């Protein structure tokens, strides 16, 4: 695998994960339990879409085929998306959204922190910017997980169940493939094993405070990073891309 192609794929993984998660959180607007949480989730969504714009613009330049952020976001099909599988999972109830958010915020926190030392200076500057925002995301999501986990019997039961069901997607975050190993060798991307150790310690701390039980590790069968997605992504993209697919090139 060429270094250029690996870099393109890696930027897509980060950018698509932010884009897909941003779109998912946007689905909450007008539906969250309170106005404060509605605003909170919309704020997160906005940050993720902003990060996706920076990352996908850069991905398009690295690819060198003239695709900009909009072409990458709106004119690719699910198999060409490289987001981690966890990001595309449906919102479910508020607790499930929070569980998904904690797992991914902690992943982004460690990833962006490591990337601030990337040998790719443009990626390092995007990461430094995103890291600052991610601190707020993690504080928001982990605060809610503690409240729900250590809350009522019902809230505890429901977030524990969501945790059990979403946990199977976490191995993918840290299972390296050729893209990761190629870029780690150049110092562009971090070693995933090191990230996993830090992520794991942080998650254990949050789960402990939330009185939740960490589910057992499961074998790794998910390949969103390589374009093999669960059925949920296609449905989400059908809505997200509807306008550009129906009226190609439409602007306002």
């Amino acid at each position, binding site marked *: 695998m060429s270094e250029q192609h690996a870099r393109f794929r890696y930027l897509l993984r980060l950018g698509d994960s932010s884009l897909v998660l*941003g779109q998912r959180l946007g689905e909450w607007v007008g539906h969250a339990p309170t106005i*404060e*949480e509605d*605003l*909170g989730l*919309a*704020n*997160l*969504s*906005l*940050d*993720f*879409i*902003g*990060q996706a*714009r*920076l990352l996908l613009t850069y991905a398009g330049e690295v690819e060198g085929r003239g695709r900009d952020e909009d072409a990458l976001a709106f004119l690719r099909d699910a198999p060409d998306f490289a987001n981690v599988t966890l990001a595309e999972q449906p919102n479910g109830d508020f607790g499930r959204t929070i569980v998904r958010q904690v797992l991914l915020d902690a992943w982004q926190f460690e990833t962006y*922190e490591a990337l601030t030392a990337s040998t790719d*200076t*443009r990626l*390092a*500057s*995007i990461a*430094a*910017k*995103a*890291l*600052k*925002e991610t*601190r*707020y995301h*993690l*504080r*928001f999501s982990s*605060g809610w997980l503690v409240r729900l986990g250590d809350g009522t019997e019902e809230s505890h039961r429901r977030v524990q169940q969501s945790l059990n069901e979403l946990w199977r997607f976490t191995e993918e975050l840290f299972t390296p493939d050729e893209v990761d190993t190629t870029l780690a060798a150049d110092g562009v991307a971090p070693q995933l094993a090191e990230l996993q150790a830090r992520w794991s310690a942080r998650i254990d701390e949050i789960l402990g405070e939330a009185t939740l039980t960490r589910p057992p590790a499961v074998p790794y069968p998910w390949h969103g990073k390589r374009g093999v997605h669960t059925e949920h992504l296609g449905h989400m993209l059908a809505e997200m891309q509807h306008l550009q697919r129906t009226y190609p090139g439409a602007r306002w």
Partner: protein
Amino acid sequence: MSVSGAPIPDPPAHAAGQGELERRVWAVLESVPDPEIPVLSVVDLGIVRHVRRTATDQGTGLHVGITPTYSGCPATEVIRQSLRAALDRAGFQDAVLEEVLSPPWTSEWLTAAGRAKLTAFGIAPPEQAVSRPRHLLQAPAVTCPRCGSRDTQRVSEFGSTPCKAHYRCRACLEPFDYFKCL
């Protein structure tokens, strides 16, 4: 180059050590308000990173560097357009607006004047140094901009814009916005 329109105010502190032309550009930039918090100018907010001249055969060779506060802040595009319009109006049509991403914007770039304007407007200015990311995983103690009490409580991590959180004062019982540390 002639400058038309309103009289130019005194040049700001940022312009210290720069030439006359750059000082006039800084003054124009200072007249552009932030669209979300109009008591602040984009210079108060630290969004304008530099005004520079490059050697050129024609025109002024002016470059104005701006940086977004939050990656997804919808005000960024409005700010860019307002700056463009203000520069054009003042006769600096050939000044180039360029985006600067590194170092990333920090709330520490709010000017002292900006912090005072925020408090007077009823928004608590940022409280913490942001040099150590992990330090910020703890929520700060915030002073009420109305009564000055430290007995305040965070209502929500996120407020009406990406840069603000929602607080309430337990002493005077008023709700208020807090300008977050980033």
